[in-house]
């Protein structure tokens, strides 16, 4: 196998707080190949966003990367300098956030922002930069891109603004797009439009995509592989169909079972007891113990996550018997 585009190795990102050290990301490892879509799934506070920020070197104090490597095309971004990171961000790795206004400047026209973004990394003339900007808007399904270039962000709807943010991300045909809940705030029909554009792009350009979300349904329809996070660690990972069909970790299974459409209508939903944990207050060993029906004495030792294929971090995984989408 060729070297993956992105290899995250035993990443540790900690926040020093008054209450103690928050190990927001605690030993996360995964690979992403060119053209591949990986869904990073988990409930709020599980460490998804911090994982994304760590890859890009965007963790602000009191946070810091306390260990591990982020190999992008073989180069370790954790030890790379800020100048080098800036050259990579925007050009080879692009970002899309839940709130497009994280990317867009409210007081500049879309044209100014896009042209500047092109010129920041490429030695081309203004006319060429403008042409590329217009084409990028067209590619994300914005009608009459020529006229829309002159508009300001507030003149767009939420869905349109997110498209503009995606168009900016595409300007340099990046090798990797890191998307953090980009459709969470959007309506179903608008979300479907954006997923359609993104899917088409990855297929046509070979761009790899890390899609961070709490929404298993979106990942099941979009991703090639999935990694499920709980309390700062990956607890299960594998090809998406394998994980959906036969979740082995009790948390993954619990998450899938909680989805209303996977339950018989009108009967109580199968739910996970207890609440999402604070990473400051985790039990010794497996973090899922207090909520897990299978926990026993063995679970006081942290189970490992084996490498490769469909893998899970659990001493007492569920059987592989397919449960399918039926419920």
């Amino acid at each position, binding site marked *: 196998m060729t070297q993956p585009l992105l290899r995250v190795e035993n990443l540790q990102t900690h926040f020093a707080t008054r209450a103690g050290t928050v190990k927001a990301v605690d030993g996360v490892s995964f690979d992403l190949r060119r053209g591949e879509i990986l869904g990073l799934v988990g409930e709020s506070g599980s460490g998804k966003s911090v994982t994304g920020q760590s890859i890009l070197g965007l963790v602000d104090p009191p946070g810091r990367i306390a260990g591990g490597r982020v190999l992008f095309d073989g180069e370790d971004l954790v030890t790379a300098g800020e100048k080098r990171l800036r050259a990579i961000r925007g050009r080879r790795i692009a970002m899309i956030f839940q709130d497009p206004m994280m990317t867009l400047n409210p007081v500049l026209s879309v044209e100014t922002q896009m042209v500047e973004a092109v010129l920041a990394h490429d030695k081309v003339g203004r006319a060429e930069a403008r042409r590329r900007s217009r084409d990028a808007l067209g590619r994300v399904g914005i009608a009459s891109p020529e006229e829309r270039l002159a508009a300001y962000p507030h003149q767009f709807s939420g*869905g349109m603004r997110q498209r503009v943010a995606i168009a900016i991300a595409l300007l340099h045909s990046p090798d990797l797009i890191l998307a953090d809940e980009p459709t969470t705030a959007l309506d179903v029909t608008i979300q479907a439009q954006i997923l359609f554009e993104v899917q088409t792009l990855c297929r046509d350009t070979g761009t790899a995509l890390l899609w961070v979300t709490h929404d298993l349904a979106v990942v099941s329809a979009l991703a090639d592989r999935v990694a499920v996070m709980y309390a700062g660690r990956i607890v299960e990972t594998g090809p998406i169909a394998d994980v959906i069909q036969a979740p082995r970790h009790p948390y993954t299974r619990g998450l899938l079972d*909680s989805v209303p459409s996977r339950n018989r209508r009108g009967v109580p*939903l199968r739910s996970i007891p207890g609440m999402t944990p604070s990473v400051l207050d985790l039990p010794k060993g497996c973090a899922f113990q207090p909520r897990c029906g299978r926990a026993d004495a063995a679970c006081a030792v942290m189970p490992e996550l084996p490498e490769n294929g469909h893998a899970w971090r659990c001493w007492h995984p569920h059987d592989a018997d397919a449960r399918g989408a039926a419920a």
Partner: protein
Amino acid sequence: MTRPILAVSGLSKRFERKLDVVERFARRLGASVDDSVLHAVSGVDLAVAEGEVVGLVGESGCGKSTLGRMVAGLLTPSDGSIQWRGTDLRDLPPAGRHEANLKIQMVFQDPMASLNPRLRVADIIGEAPVVHGLVPRREAAEAVAEMMRTVGLDPGYMRRYPHQFSGGQRQRIGIARALAVKPDFLVCDESVAALDVSIQAQIINLFMRLREELRLTYLFISHDLGVVQHISDRTAIMYLGRIVELAPTPELFAAPNHPYARALLDEAPRVTLEKRRFAPIRGEIPSPLNPPAGCPFHPRCPHAMPRCSQERPDLREVAPARWSACHLNDTL
């Protein structure tokens, strides 16, 4: 249907929008006058049977919250009537209207925003029933404890403040507060939207248990089709301020009649075993400041006919208990 517990007819809400300078100038030059009025809800008819759960779905801005707030008495309708157990609220004396309004309570999306952060849980839950004379003050603590047990909270925590609870627990506090005045009808407005999936399932189960135990009726507003499908007996789909389809939930989800309902169901993300090609409907939701003439969905509808841009389809019973507002039903 036997006499509905709640019925609204021709219910509308318009919001006046102040014109800015440019718009006032344009209007003097003869531009459309109507642009200053936002049609949030337009002519909604809906009857809810006692003990029933009616789900209300639609994309943001379609008027779900506005409709819910009118039903809960938090917003005055511009037009139309609300009948509570057969009586038009406008015909009731103030005391009677007040009593009816207490019987209809609302549970909101964001418990943090709707709970006063400076009040202890005991006061958040206990205040209204005391003020309205439902519970004598000296029995308030016991009533609060009872309410907390009902929604699955430990009464030992009643002296705490909202921020000391998790999101799921705060939603339980919001539910307890609504239930404390002994309502018959709950308007739940995106009440599980802000919660993580595993916690959302717990709260949905709570709503279902309370319905049985307290014989409650719900208007359950959500943008999440899976949630509505699970919990509702009937489902109403809104688009641009109007109900475009209303039907028993299993039938609607099995075979939606209205083209918008079909598009919405097709595009709702579902947990699947196969990768999907998304094939979205085009276009954006039009502005309620300037809703399209004719059928509000016609600019995006793959089946639009010439008639659709001129004549607005009424919500009609197209099969027993199935209502839809689409001209296609005439040509069948």
